[in-house]
């Protein structure tokens, strides 16, 4: 395990409207790993990703991508991103699959330039890679959710990134396609050496595919390989979600069933 880190996050905190969303996050992700970033809804997963991508500015801490400080990092074509909101575009948008995937190269090609033959071949290859070649000239709005998701992955892959970040990519994808989708990610990781970060709240299915797991709920509760994670899973889940449960019971002022059994004589009558 002497691989270089793709991402280093040090003491990162982020507050939104005065409320802490992320606190003291320290996380190093090695090149070549396939990390599952899990946590309940509202746990700050997407916020952390947005900080990594420079879409949000953290209040504290430091981020390095491939050794370079985020402020100075400029090889954005090394990073592919598939957003949670990727398929919330206007479904009437007049763009073909080919055009959408081309957008993944636009940042790389530069101003005043248009796609050359070589670029167009790269676009076609990326579309083949996600097995959407039969839909090359189809309108993006007319595809199913799962097909659109594949197109957005092709858009992220076309610039040949070293790191691919997927934020809840299986939302809106039918159950049948999900496993096929994970297989494809695994293939990218194993056979092409792309470092992957998969953000999900669906903990079950993903552990079969990822090499590492990080659990986030405002704090980073766990980071380790899949084996360690599976050993500690139960404990970890209760630690991570337990915090939430307590808050909930507190707010609603419901006596805990549990405490009722044990509290003989009503010690906590107030």
């Amino acid at each position: 395990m002497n691989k270089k880190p793709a991402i280093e996050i040090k003491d990162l905190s982020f507050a939104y409207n005065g409320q802490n969303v992320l606190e003291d996050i320290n996380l190093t992700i090695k090149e070549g790993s396939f990390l599952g970033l899990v946590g309940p809804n509202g746990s700050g997963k997407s916020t952390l990703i947005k900080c990594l991508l420079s879409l949000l500015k953290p209040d504290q801490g430091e981020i390095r991508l491939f050794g370079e400080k985020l402020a100075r990092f400029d090889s954005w074509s090394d990073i592919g991103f598939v957003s949670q909101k990727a398929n919330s575009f206007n479904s009437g948008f007049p763009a073909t699959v080919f055009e959408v995937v081309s957008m993944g190269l636009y940042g790389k090609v530069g101003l005043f330039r248009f796609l050359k033959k070589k670029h167009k071949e790269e676009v076609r290859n990326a579309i083949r890679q996600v097995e959407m070649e039969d839909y090359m000239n189809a309108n993006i709005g007319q595809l199913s959710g799962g097909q659109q998701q594949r197109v957005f992955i092709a858009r992220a892959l076309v610039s040949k990134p070293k790191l691919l970040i997927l934020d809840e990519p299986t939302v809106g994808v039918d159950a049948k396609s999900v496993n096929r989708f994970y297989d494809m990610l695994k293939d990218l990781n194993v056979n092409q050496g792309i470092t992957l970060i998969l953000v999900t709240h669906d903990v079950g299915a993903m552990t079969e595919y990822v090499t590492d797991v990080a659990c986030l709920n405002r704090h980073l509760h766990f980071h380790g390989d899949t084996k360690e994670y599976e050993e500690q899973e139960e404990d970890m889940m209760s630690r991570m979600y337990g915090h939430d449960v307590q808050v909930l019971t507190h707010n609603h002022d419901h006596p805990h069933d549990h405490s009722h059994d044990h509290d003989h004589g009503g010690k906590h009558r107030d």
Partner: protein
Amino acid sequence: MELLQQLTFLERGIIAGLIIGFICPLLGAFLLVRRITIISEALSHITLTGIAAGVFLSQTTILMGMINPLYTGLIFSLAGSLLVEKLRQIYKHFQELAIPIILSSGVGLGAILISMSGGSYNEWYNYLFGSIVTVTLGDLGFIAGTGIVALIILLAFYKELLSISFDQEFAKTSGMKVTRINFFFSLLIALVISMSMKVVGILLVGAMVTLPVAASIQLAKSFRQVVVLGILFGQMAMIGGIYFSYHLNVATGGMIVVTGVVILILSAGLKRFRKGLA
């Protein structure tokens, strides 16, 4: 230069019309996919204010006598475009407010300036509804100049504008300077609106930006097709409009727009026909 001076009034008008019929749909395609075609209405009205200011100044000061009011129109249009962007940021959750605010301020201020400038009825009629026969050589120079600048911006940012229109977040993560590009886009809209003023007129300029792409999106599957068909329809509307207005002796601006509407209806019909076949 001599060749330019030998152009008849009609030839000047036709050249101006073809330039406008090319650039307007090109811009319109981006306004369409960003769902802000309505911005052309706000900017055309603020351009009227600028023209009124130009006419007023040219009558009151000696120095300004030589300035073509189209230039003051352009300055107001640029300011208006940037203001719309600013208002959209201020009213983040009510972005559509920016348009009526700018539009009504423009018309209000314009009405005052027009009443002060005392231009002839005919002159204002031409600004409102466009007049191809009054395109001077100076006007043609203005239209060609702004047209070239607009084309340069479009060529520079074509890919970027498309990517931002489709998915702004992704455009940012692919390393694009979105704020800077949006600033140039604001300039571009202002340029195109003020360049079209003379030929189609303030009240009809929105039509040249909207109608050709409204027709092309009926038939297009790709963004590229929206652009190419839009330009084709724009040229057809221009040539058809000028031809019929000349022969029927009616207002050119109006005839151009009506031709555009006919093209729109035909393309909608063609779409239904195609669907029926499928």
